[in-house]
């Protein structure tokens, strides 16, 4: 019932603009893959190519080993949950959910059974006769989901499915949606600009930028080992530092920024770097420790210039002697209390937490 999807060199141009630019990708059967990126990165166009509402300029789409590139939307076993939900206002909840089965000319008795099953699956019992305008946002979302999975598609597409819900409901639905997806076992592509949603729900995340996939991998890997400055900054916050290689000893590389700051990083295959090579590294704010007392290891002193209380954590922006600004995120209340605006704190990070994101330098921040 569920099948792998393969995109081969898929491109879509609108005039001179390449909305999708040579994307090749394989989604395994039953996997949930997220296309994550800012608006305009091409993720929605990619989704429309999959559902068949746009035709690719070049490349092909394969579902379960069959080329579906030229097929009209209604001939593809691919169903979508629209961002607007797109529930038919003239049909009841029951008839909305039954729509796909009616189009497949399933016999009426079976339609009733499968609709009842889907209604139970998404906990909509008792609302079958309502119309869309009589439902809450969360209920509409469930109807849209039930409508999309009840025809048993080979692929399920979710276009920003939770963006219309409030924060609390969104978190609940993330878990719920993932549970249902696992239970039904349908290969799913989720499109979102919400990194938290992407990390919480997916088997793998594809970060998109300017029509291309910048990095593809499990959420943890993409978060902890970003491979490009864009990924480091889009997925979570990041301190990007451009520096030149000063010395290589074993796995550790000593780096020096143009303004003279020296620090160490533990990089994979450091022998590949010659002294003087320009690199860009990313240090996650939560990896930058802040303390009122001197820290062991790789430490430096800095002045506190900004402090923002975020609830579970505190964001502290510090400025080192060199006027370099770095952001730290700490949930250590003692450390946060010690950081007074204008005061001095001790900062440190583990060399292993400085991640190489580009083999060229960037201007000092």
């Amino acid at each position, binding site marked *: 019932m569920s099948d792998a999807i393969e995109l081969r060199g898929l491109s879509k141009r609108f005039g001179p603009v390449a909305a999708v630019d040579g994307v090749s990708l394989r989604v395994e059967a039953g996997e949930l893959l997220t296309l994550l990126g800012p608006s305009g990165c091409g993720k929605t166009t990619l989704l429309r190519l999959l*559902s*068949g*509402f746009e035709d690719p300029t070049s490349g092909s789409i394969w579902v379960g080993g069959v080329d579906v590139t030229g097929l*009209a*939307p*209604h001939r593809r076993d*691919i*169903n*979508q949950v*629209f961002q*607007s939900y*797109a*529930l*038919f*206002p*003239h*049909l*009841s909840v029951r008839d909305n959910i039954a*729509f*796909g089965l009616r*189009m*497949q000319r399933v016999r009426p008795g079976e339609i009733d059974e499968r609709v009842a099953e889907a209604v139970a699956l998404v906990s909509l019992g008792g609302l079958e006769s*309502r*119309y869309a*305008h*009589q*439902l809450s946002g969360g209920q509409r979302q469930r109807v849209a989901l039930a*409508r*999309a999975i009840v*025809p048993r598609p080979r692929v399920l597409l979710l276009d920003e499915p939770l963006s219309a819900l409030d924060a609390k409901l969104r978190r609940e639905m993330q878990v719920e949606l993932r549970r249902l997806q696992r239970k039904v076992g349908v290969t799913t592509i989720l499109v979102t600009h919400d990194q938290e949603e992407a990390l919480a729900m997916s088997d793998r995340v594809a970060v998109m930028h300017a029509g291309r996939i910048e990095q593809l991998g499990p959420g943890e890997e993409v978060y902890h080992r970003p491979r490009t400055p864009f990924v480091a900054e889009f997925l979570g916050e990041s301190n990007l530092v451009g520096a030149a290689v000063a010395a290589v000893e074993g796995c550790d590389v000593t780096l020096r920024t143009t303004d003279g700051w020296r620090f160490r990083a533990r990089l994979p295959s450091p022998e590949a770097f010659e002294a003087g090579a320009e690199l860009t590294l990313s240090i996650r704010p939560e990896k930058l420790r802040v303390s009122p007392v001197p820290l062991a290891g790789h430490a430096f002193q800095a002045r506190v210039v900004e402090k923002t209380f975020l609830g579970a954590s505190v964001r502290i922006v510090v400025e080192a002697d060199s006027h370099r600004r770095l952001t730290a995120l700490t949930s250590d209340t003692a450390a946060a209390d010690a950081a007074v605006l204008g005061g001095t704190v001790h900062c440190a990070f583990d060399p292993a937490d400085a991640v190489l994101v580009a083999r060229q330098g960037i201007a000092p921040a």
Partner: protein
Amino acid sequence: MQPLLPSTPTSGGSRRPTVRAWVLLAPMLAWLLFFAVLPLGILAAYSFCQRDDIGRIVFSFSAANYARVLDPGYLRILGRSLAYAGATTAICLVMGYPAAFFIARRDARLRGRLLLLVMIPFWTSFLIRTYAWVQILKGHGLLNAFLESARLISSPVEWLYTPTAVIIGLVYSFLPFMILPIYASAEKLDRDLLEAAADLGAGPLRVFSRVAIPLTWPGIAAGIVLVFVPATGMFAVTDLLGGAQVPLIGNVIQNQFLQARNWPFGAALGVVFTVLFALSYALVQRTPRWERSAPP
């Protein structure tokens, strides 16, 4: 009374109109009273009267005028009127729906310009435009000249004073009244709904019949009423383009008032028509069930 144009679901239920609302409504209510209710009442009263030899109204109650409406001669004309209006409505619907849908799917700027094109004819008197059609359709008119130069015909075809000319004139006159209300409905139709239907396996025909038609039905119904009703009563087009060859009920009613000077009988014909239309309007313009159901 239902609104004539497509309605949207209302929220808030039934609130009592305040005094201020009545004051604000007063001019319109007065207008309706003096120009709709009162004339119709007079018409209804006349329809039960008689006339004397020189056409004056004699106030003696009689249903004779209504009995005369059932005369086979008039019933035939009535049937023919309904047939012409029906054909006009059908042609307007087939031509107008795609046009309205097309306009509604354009971007905002182009939409405005296309709508302007639909409405430009209203800037010229209806009679003058109908005379223009005489020029187009006559023996050595534009249409024949074009067909001859395109070598589609060898000698001029008689268009003018035929049923075809009447239908052409009626369709021409009423097409905008079909396009505009359908446009108003189609413009509100969300593209996502059409795509969702296709996504769930509906081919273009079923997207149309299962989603587009039901959701633009208020516009279709309004268009049908706006075309069918005046097309039935239209007499200028049939006079000018039909050359009185094919009298329709509008011509008969006009005759009763202006030539035959039999106002009571003309009034009876008018009342019968008004009632027929009110009934047909109530039928097509019912608020759909899904819009009537209240929010939770």
